[in-house]
């Protein structure tokens, strides 16, 4: 089965989505190393993954 290619929003590089990729999965761009969240599979859509931040609440 062919892998779909998404586009990295940070560097415009091609990011392969394996056939079993799921929405919400975190991938790394092979070119720039950005952590990317899979927003949709078809069509492939990637967005920068949320940064790990401290959450002290209010």
């Amino acid at each position, binding site marked *: 089965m062919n892998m779909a290619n998404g586009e990295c929003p940070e*560097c415009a*590089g091609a990011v392969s989505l394996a056939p079993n990729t799921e929405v919400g999965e975190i991938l790394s761009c092979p*070119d*720039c190393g950005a952590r990317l969240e899979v927003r949709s599979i078809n069509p492939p859509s990637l967005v920068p993954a949320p940064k790990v931040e401290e959450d002290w609440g209010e």
Partner: protein
Amino acid sequence: MAKKVAIIGASGYTGGELLRWALMHSEMDVSQITSERFAGQAATKLNPNLRGFTQLAFTPVKELKNDVDAIFICTPHKTGAQYVKQFFETGVKIVDLSADFRLHNKDTYAKYYQEHPHPDLLQHAVYGLPELHREEIKKAKLVACPGCLATSIILPLAPLVKAKLISVEGIIADSKIGSSAGGAGFDISTHHPERQGGVRSYKPHGHRHTAEIEQELSAINGAPVSVGMTPHGIEMVRGIMSTVHVRQTGKLADIDLWKAYRSFFTGSPFVRLVKDQQTLYRYPEPKPVVGTNFADIGWELDQEKGRIIIMSAIDNLVKGSGGQAIQNFNLMNGFDEKMGLWQPGFHPL
């Protein structure tokens, strides 16, 4: 059938490195290597890494047989021009690793070197940076291999100059370079107690390679480009790390630079873009390219100051001389550009 080649001035570091690659190349048959000083001695006396790979011995250049398809010239400037003159009319393909045919203008050559001994031949030479002149190199009889520092500075700047993303005035390149770039000769400056632990700025301005950097970038720009370059000799045998400081012409984002670099270097297998958010090796540095023909290029935007800091790393003896010479030879002979050169470096090193 493999091309028969000779290497003139093969006893230096550049010649030795070229010989290493040439011996492993499937379409090259090294028939002769010359050295006046070491005539009669085996190549492996000076290049112990080649033990078991060659029986060649150095001969004087006057004994060079006229039956080769290509000649590599690895002599210092001025001497190189004499050999180019001697062999150019024979029709043999020439890859000159000296500085004698890098500059198109004889007056610029005179300013940085001395009077050119054979200025009539300058028009025949192609500047041998494949990433800029691939198609011309394919048709050339005489290719002038770029300087090592020049290679490390032209490559990261060319895409941004072409795309008009940076100011072409006040470009500053700061380079760190390994001691092998000083050649196999020696004097007090290369003496171990003087060199050990040292970081020496040896030509703060006016380095000879500045001329070819400005020549090539100005041609891309269609107007003069001004580059100041300061090299530092550091405690490293191989490698160049160049950090180039430029100003943005407008507000840029990382993705603009990714696109400019990718667009320019499509089809250039030896340029790798290195700007990684996660690994230890986030930017280029010499160690991963040592022993390879790769040029690693990365950058960082300083939005607050409107600058771009560009980093490039090469092995001065490979992409900076011997490897690039093989890459040019491949193109001149219709071979795959990567032939005999496609291998990674060591890690760890």
